[in-house]
């Protein structure tokens, strides 16, 4: 169905580097020379997560020469949905690199490039902070640096990194995010330090993509069990591009397991579903909807809160055609919450 209201907040759009060389002006002299000498400015450091020409990577009318690189195409998407704000996420190889310093240098350059080449050019755009996800200290430093610019509204992580997200080694990232009123955007994906599924390396991209939801579920379980929301009571987590309909059955099982196994995690004083409803948000595309509107309504009731979903097109990825960005079965009242109220409540920096 179409969005029945104006002024929506699109909580997940993707912008992409046309090539690595565009980052050179946004680096200091040492890294410019380092990267040029290695020839990395000539290389394509795109993550393996989105084969450039795969159908899902670019909707035909949003594809352009390379999906996510064209400001005008993004602006036409914002015009189509009468979007008030759109939160830009860069998915790239930079946050994944093995050298923490190299990774941090590339991430700093990406954030500088995002501010200058995108945020400065359209007042509707906001962005997530790209951080070296395997280096919590350097990631926290980058969060503090970028937080000075209010147009950065979120910290971007991937669901599957080297260690489960809740592990304490990652907590400096969460402290920096909470301190600066930045939700933690956990995007579907992997840095491929492990197989993308816990049964090994599948043959097909289709399997990888479907498996992303399992990766998000594992990350969510880790954040809850390790006590991240107890330690950081004001932290919000937004699961980006993770699918939606797995959430109710996740809550049921997590709650049941917690009742039996909570002695292991005594800090977790409430059932997992409570933490989810308080702290966790999910973007709506790709919405893995059941076959009928009735069933979708039922499923949304099962989530047990109208606060959880955030509107997103996932531009330029191809999950729906035309303007039917929402699944059938969502009431106008709920659509308003998903598209406006929930994003404003989730992202404090959207409210000046």
């Amino acid at each position, binding site marked *: 169905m179409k969005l029945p209201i104006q002024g929506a907040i699109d909580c997940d759009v993707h912008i992409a580097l046309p090539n690595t060389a565009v980052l050179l002006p946004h680096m200091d002299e040492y890294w410019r020379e380092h990267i040029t*000498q*290695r*020839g*990395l400015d*000539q*290389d*394509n*450091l*795109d*993550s*393996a*997560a*989105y*084969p*450039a*020409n*795969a*159908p899902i990577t670019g909707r035909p009318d949003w594809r352009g020469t390379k999906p996510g690189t064209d400001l005008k195409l993004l602006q036409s998407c914002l015009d189509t949905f009468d979007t008030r704000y759109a939160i830009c996420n860069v998915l790239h*190889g930079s946050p*994944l*690199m*093995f*050298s*923490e310093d*190299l990774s941090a240098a590339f991430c700093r350059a990406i954030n500088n490039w995002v501010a200058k080449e995108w945020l400065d050019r359209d007042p509707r755009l906001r962005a997530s902070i790209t951080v070296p996800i395997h280096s919590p200290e350097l990631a926290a430093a980058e969060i503090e640096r970028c937080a000075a610019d209010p147009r950065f509204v979120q910290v971007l992580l991937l669901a599957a990194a*080297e260690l489960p997200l809740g592990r304490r080694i990652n907590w400096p990232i969460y402290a920096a995010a909470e301190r600066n009123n930045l939700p933690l955007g956990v995007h579907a994906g*992997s*840095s*491929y*330090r*492990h*197989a993308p599924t816990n049964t090994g*390396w*599948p*043959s*097909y*991209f289709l399997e990888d993509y479907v498996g992303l939801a399992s990766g998000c579920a594992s990350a969510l379980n880790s954040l809850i069990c390790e006590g991240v929301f107890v330690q950081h009571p004001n932290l919000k987590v937004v699961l980006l591009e993770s699918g939606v309909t797995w959430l109710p059955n996740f809550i049921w099982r997590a709650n049941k397991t917690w009742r039996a196994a909570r002695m292991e995690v005594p800090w977790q004083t409430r059932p997992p579903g409570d933490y989810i409803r308080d702290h966790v948000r999910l973007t709506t595309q790709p919405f893995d909807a059941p076959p009928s509107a009735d069933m979708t309504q039922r499923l949304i009731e099962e989530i047990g809160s109208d606060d959880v979903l955030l509107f997103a097109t996932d531009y330029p990825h191809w999950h729906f055609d035309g303007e039917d960005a929402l699944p059938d079965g969502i009431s106008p009242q709920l659509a308003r919450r998903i598209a406006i109220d929930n994003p404003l409540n989730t992202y404090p920096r959207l409210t000046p």
Partner: protein
Amino acid sequence: MNVITPQTQPDVSAQSLTGYVDCDVHPYFKNPAELDAFLPTRWREHRKEYGARSRSALAYMPQYPRLSPQNGMRMDAFPPDGSLPGSDLPFMREQLIDLFGMAHGILLPLLGRGGDERNLEYGAAMCTAVNDWMLAYWCDPEPRLKASIQINVEHAESAIAEIEKRAGDRRFAQVQINQRGLEPLGRHRYRKILQAAAANGFPIAMHLGGTSGHASTAGGWPSYYHEEHHAYVQSMEGIVTSLVVEGVFEQIPNLKVALVEGGFAWIPALTWRLDKHYRRLRTEVPHLKRLPSEYIRDHIWVTTQPVEEPERAGDMLSTLEWIGWDRVMFSTDYPHWDQDDPRYAFKVQIPEQQKRMLFRENALAFYNLA
């Protein structure tokens, strides 16, 4: 032991021999579309739409970026037309084949990545395509160059079919397998492939690299290419240990294996260690009938580049002696950044007879090229 004492000031200015055999040459394409001509339509479209998908983080690059452009190329090896080093036959003749008077060069293509491919049907098709491409672009116009058969060991049926298809074709010298795969090569699931290679008269070449999806050290992922490059040695040690201990050489007595670009100075120490612990633990592996060192001595060959540089130059000679002078084969690794020049690679004067073995005769015998 017959220890050769080096001269105090060895003359190492020009060690090359006319007619040397180069056991590691990397051909590249000028344009990946060159491979399309050798791919069926279904896979040509797949290449365009989904491309190569291996077990690593970056779509187009090795996950440890190299230190020079285009994934670690020698800076003066870019052909005059600016295409990739190793992609231009006349320029390769000028810089390598004719310059050093090469008798034969063994091609180990690191492109197409059919052996790394997660989609096994596509991987098999890509291996076949690269095999045909090597013949058309390299071996037929330049018969001094010999090809390595590409296979994907995770698809045994197609790997064996490809080996059998190329059997008897003297343009192919060996079967090329990635050093790093899903499991160690000695594991039973790969045995039929190794049997097919030996049965058809092909040695196996294990070139460094491959995207296994496993961390490249036993303690996890290191930070730097500096470390990754060193870890190739540990991968070679793992391969040798696996092949020996699983009993591969007991089961396939005519299998010959070349370890390419993984160093060689580690072989004596690994051999001693395997023998020592085999003696204590032999009841666990009763399928082994001989000492590990004997299997290694009979079945394992090594190529030289990147050549070891002992702190005392003369220690090279005892190392080679311990491995066996007849088991070491010279290689350049052209056109990569760490290429060895046959004239200067060894920092010690090698006696004439051993020099002939190392630069020429060992490889002629190994590849049956004489």
